[in-house]
């Protein structure tokens, strides 16, 4: 404790970097928020992870959040303007994406699980410098046997892609966090996340 070197500055020079996940109940969205927090925690950052404070049910739209800080995080309130948005369920891209993008902090990043490019989905970048990236996480999850063919579990896959895109957490810490916090199919989840990490390009922050 307290022996790790000081972590690098957060993307965009933020004191607190806030991530919002949109998914469906039963897809491991809340676990994804905890895994991301754990990875950053392992790197010595202040963290919080929490579901949207609601009545989650299998299949219903679910929101979860991760806060990552340069120091200890004390806030006990909602995330109002996230720095990053992760939409894990393709069926939500059409219904929640455009509205959620409006909430994104200018200069932020949105990662969508979709086989379509953002412009094909009619999604426009809400402000200058904001990036909207789509990525076919479902196919990668299927290849690694995560979930079923009809409803793949993409939570660790999107985290692999997100870590690479943002540089927010390093691969070794993400890997360790998955091993510690994902209750099932640890090896497959690690392999799938690594494949995602290696298949997307880095976006300079």
């Amino acid at each position, binding site marked *: *404790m307290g022996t790790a070197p000081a972590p690098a500055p957060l993307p965009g020079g933020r004191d607190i970097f806030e991530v919002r996940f949109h998914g469906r109940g039963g897809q491991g969205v809340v676990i994804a928020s*905890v895994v991301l*927090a*754990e990875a950053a*925690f392992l790197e010595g950052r*202040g*963290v*919080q*992870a*929490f*579901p949207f*404070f609601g*009545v989650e049910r299998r299949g219903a739209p679910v929101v979860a959040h991760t806060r990552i800080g340069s120091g200890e*995080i*004390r*806030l*006990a*309130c*909602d995330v*109002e303007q996230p720095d990053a948005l992760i939409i894990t369920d393709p069926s939500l891209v059409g219904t929640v994406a455009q509205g959620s993008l409006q909430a994104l902090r200018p200069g932020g990043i949105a990662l969508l699980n979709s086989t379509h490019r953002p412009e094909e989905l009619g999604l426009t970048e809400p402000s200058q410098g904001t990036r909207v990236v789509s990525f076919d996480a479902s196919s990668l999850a299927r290849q690694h046997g995560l979930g079923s063919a009809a409803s793949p579990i993409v939570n660790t896959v999107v985290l692999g892609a997100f870590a690479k895109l943002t540089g927010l957490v390093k691969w070794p810490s993400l890997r360790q966090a998955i091993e510690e916090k994902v209750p099932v199919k640890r090896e497959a989840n690690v392999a799938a996340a690594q494949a995602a990490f290696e298949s997307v390009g880095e976006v300079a922050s």
Partner: protein
Amino acid sequence: MPRQLLSGNQAVGEAVRLARAQVVSAYPITPQTTIVEHLAEAVGSHALDADFITVESEHSAMAACVGASVAGARAFTATSSQGLALMHEMLHWASGQRTPIVMANVNRALAPPWNIWVDHSDSMAQRDTGWLQIYAETNQEVMDTVLQAYRVAEDPTVMLPVMVMLDAFLLSHTYMPVDVPDEATVDAFLPAFSPRDRVDPGATQLFGSFSPPSLCFMELRHAMARAMDRAQVRLVEVGKEYSQATGRPPLGLLDEYRTEGADAVLIAAGSLAATARDAVDRLRHDGKKVGLIRLRVFRPFPTEQVRALGRRFPVIGVLDRSFSYGSGGAIASEVRASLQGERSPRPKVGSFIVGLGGRDVRPEHLVKLYRRLLEGHAPGEEWVGLREGT
């Protein structure tokens, strides 16, 4: 001391496991359910050597804990909101029989309309039941407070039950880093429960029983009142002992944040205090002299400490996440009562009702309140964050 990422409910579960509770009886209710799940798993996997008594209601859960405690077992339960309300009758039995039960209450609003979010009305409605009430600000404090609660409750000079409060979702379901003390440290800090009196089939004793007006009822109540006084002293002492055992900062009845030379302070309990610390930092950065008084213990109420604050700060604002209809904010009422009889000039005391039913309270909201306090604006009762036109 390993540092782990734990939700508030996991912190409760781990603390109860470390405390080696012997009987756990609880009924699930959102947002408390994961505490009971955690403990059921701990009992099932023998990580905790306890009897897990499943019951049909919170009323029965507390009855089971009272029975376990008078038999000499360390008992634990957890509840929230409607569950705590249903338990009301048995709360008096627990304190009246002087059973040192520890209960976690996840603070949640009472219906109608149904609302599962944070609100302190559930526990504030139980303030006169003879239980100690401690409000946690962070998950670390949840862990530390549950362990300290058993030490204070089981002290032979106290023997009263303790309610440990954590805010729905903001703590219960939020994962934060928590230093978890090791078993040897906790075992040394918290020895096994060994009450002087316990139900013994071979001895003739009375537990509960009956008292006509002329016998002992009033004397027993007077004894409870004095036990609460001693609990106040023990809370502070045990906070220091825990600090020595674990290296964590000592927790007392209330604490101060950046109050040096403050022209105005806010008083807050629970996770509101964490958000208020950010508001204080922002204003101090701008050169404004404001600070925070974090109220940790509501029962016994730290009257003397609040009187002392009244002599130091000209303007005090009180945040209440509950409301007593026909009266006001519960904490504000206590603060004002504490300051009665002080020589003038007494501080102005403003009462702000915030965050009922989980309404979001953000640092910027509290910055505004601080700015108004600095202008001398201390309302008798003001509801903050109401939607207009509703």
